[in-house]
């Protein structure tokens, strides 16, 4: 990771404090009750972290993308659900910031987001698209006097009822093709989210992501001018994959740390005796190193590609393959590390109430392969591999 400037170090110090003092003590209850990590989000609001990536000239923290990724990692070490809520909010903020037109409505919005520390959730998945984020059914529909309306059926909306604002993918117009999409932002008061499902999942329970029907009416200026396909390729997809993989690495790192603490405790109890768990821990370290290397190189390559004029490199197939691959490998490797930690700790890690418990880590990371199903990404990659040259 590149060297961070002092204000960014201060930001990360605050994030670590919140992770240790707020997210960690509530993590078990958030998981058990499948409830929103309200204390962590409030603590993040209190230090202005929800606007950390908003440019300083709009009042925000102006931290780098690297610092944001590091923050996801730090929160992930203490509470996977808190880290996921933070990451998903930041994906929306980063997307808006990277596609901001000077003088647009969104400039004023980012100022408000900063002063009010507004939380954004996204509504990108949709019933009837077979899990393809690149297609929509719901459409922007003219509603008179410069306003538009839409109704969208979403199979999951993470923390939707806790968010102040929603960023939603839609077809550009009622007669537009499914792939001709735009992004619309609606504030609480402009939309109504009717929850349609229940939420009792295996892991990432605190993200509170049941399905819902979203109905909204909004001024047309609240639609981002850049077409969604460009936003998706240059920002939303790679940024999602990078921030998610950082928090998955955070969860896996904590599972490894617990396994290591377990081995140290065992070694102290039986000094000088052979310790099979120590050898298993060494194997586990190689697995964790692979994950760490993939995650950090993904971040570095994204930052380099973002610096090319017009972000040219990010719109190539080679880039799509690169950042899809980050998601695939990190989502496979993170639960593998957690399972390895269980192999080291044995029954002590299997139990939910010991200092070495890794059950929540394993369950949380098992959601990784479902957040945009890995098989769908493999299908996309398989198609891109037919034509891409230098991968």
């Amino acid at each position, binding site marked *: 990771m590149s060297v961070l400037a002092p204000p960014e170090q201060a930001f990360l110090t605050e994030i670590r404090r919140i992770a240790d003092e707020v997210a960690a003590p509530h993590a078990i209850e958030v998981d058990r009750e499948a409830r929103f990590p309200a204390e962590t989000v409030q603590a993040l609001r209190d230090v202005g972290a929800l606007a950390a990536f908003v440019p300083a000239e709009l009042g925000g923290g102006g931290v780098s993308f690297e610092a944001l990724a590091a923050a996801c990692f730090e929160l992930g070490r203490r509470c996977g659900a808190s880290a996921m809520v933070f990451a998903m909010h930041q994906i929306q903020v980063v997307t808006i910031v990277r596609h901001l037109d000077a003088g647009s409505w969104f400039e004023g919005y980012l100022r408000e987001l900063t002063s009010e520390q507004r939380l954004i959730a996204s509504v990108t998945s949709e019933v009837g698209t077979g899990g393809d984020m690149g297609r929509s059914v719901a459409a922007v529909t003219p509603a008179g006097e410069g306003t538009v309306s839409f109704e969208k059926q979403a199979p999951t909306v993470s923390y939707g009822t806790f968010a102040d604002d929603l960023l939603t993918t839609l077809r550009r117009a009622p007669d537009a*093709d499914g792939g001709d999409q735009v992004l619309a932002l609606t504030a609480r008061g402009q939309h109504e989210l009717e929850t349609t499902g229940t939420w009792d999942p295996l892991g990432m329970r605190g993200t509170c992501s049941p399905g819902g029907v979203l109905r909204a009416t909004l001024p047309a200026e609240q639609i981002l001018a850049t077409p969604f396909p460009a936003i998706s390729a240059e920002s939303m997809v790679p940024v999602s994959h990078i921030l998610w993989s950082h928090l998955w690495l955070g969860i896996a790192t904590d599972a490894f740390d617990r396994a290591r603490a377990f081995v140290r405790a065992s070694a102290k109890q039986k000094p000088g005796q052979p310790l099979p768990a120590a050898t298993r821990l060494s194997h586990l370290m190689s697995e964790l190193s692979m994950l760490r290397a993939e995650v950090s190189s993904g971040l570095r390559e994204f930052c380099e590609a973002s610096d090319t004029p017009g972000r040219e490199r990010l719109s190539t197939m080679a880039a799509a393959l690169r950042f899809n691959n980050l998601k695939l490998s990190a989502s496979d490797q993170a639960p593998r590390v957690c399972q390895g930690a269980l192999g080291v700790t044995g029954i002590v890690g299997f139990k939910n109430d010991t200092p070495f418990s890794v059950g929540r880590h394993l369950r949380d990371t098992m959601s990784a392969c479902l957040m945009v199903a890995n098989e769908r990404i493999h299908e996309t990659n398989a198609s891109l591999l037919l034509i891409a040259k230098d991968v």
Partner: protein
Amino acid sequence: MPDAIRTIIQEHGRMPVDVSTLPDDADLYAAGMTSHASVNVMLALEDAFDIEFPDHMLKRSVFESFAEIRAALEELGAGAPA
């Protein structure tokens, strides 16, 4: 060349509209060409014109319209379909 490009998109673009009705600068993606279909269009163009699109040209904007595709083929020195 323009007719050959249209024929390839008609055959491989799996467009929900009649390709012959689209103007030269029509946005093919907005007209319904999916990312998956566009890969087949690229493969067919490489085959028909006996060229290879380098990685920096393998992006959405290069295959967005008949005009853009023709410009890309000309840049690669493609002649008549092989």
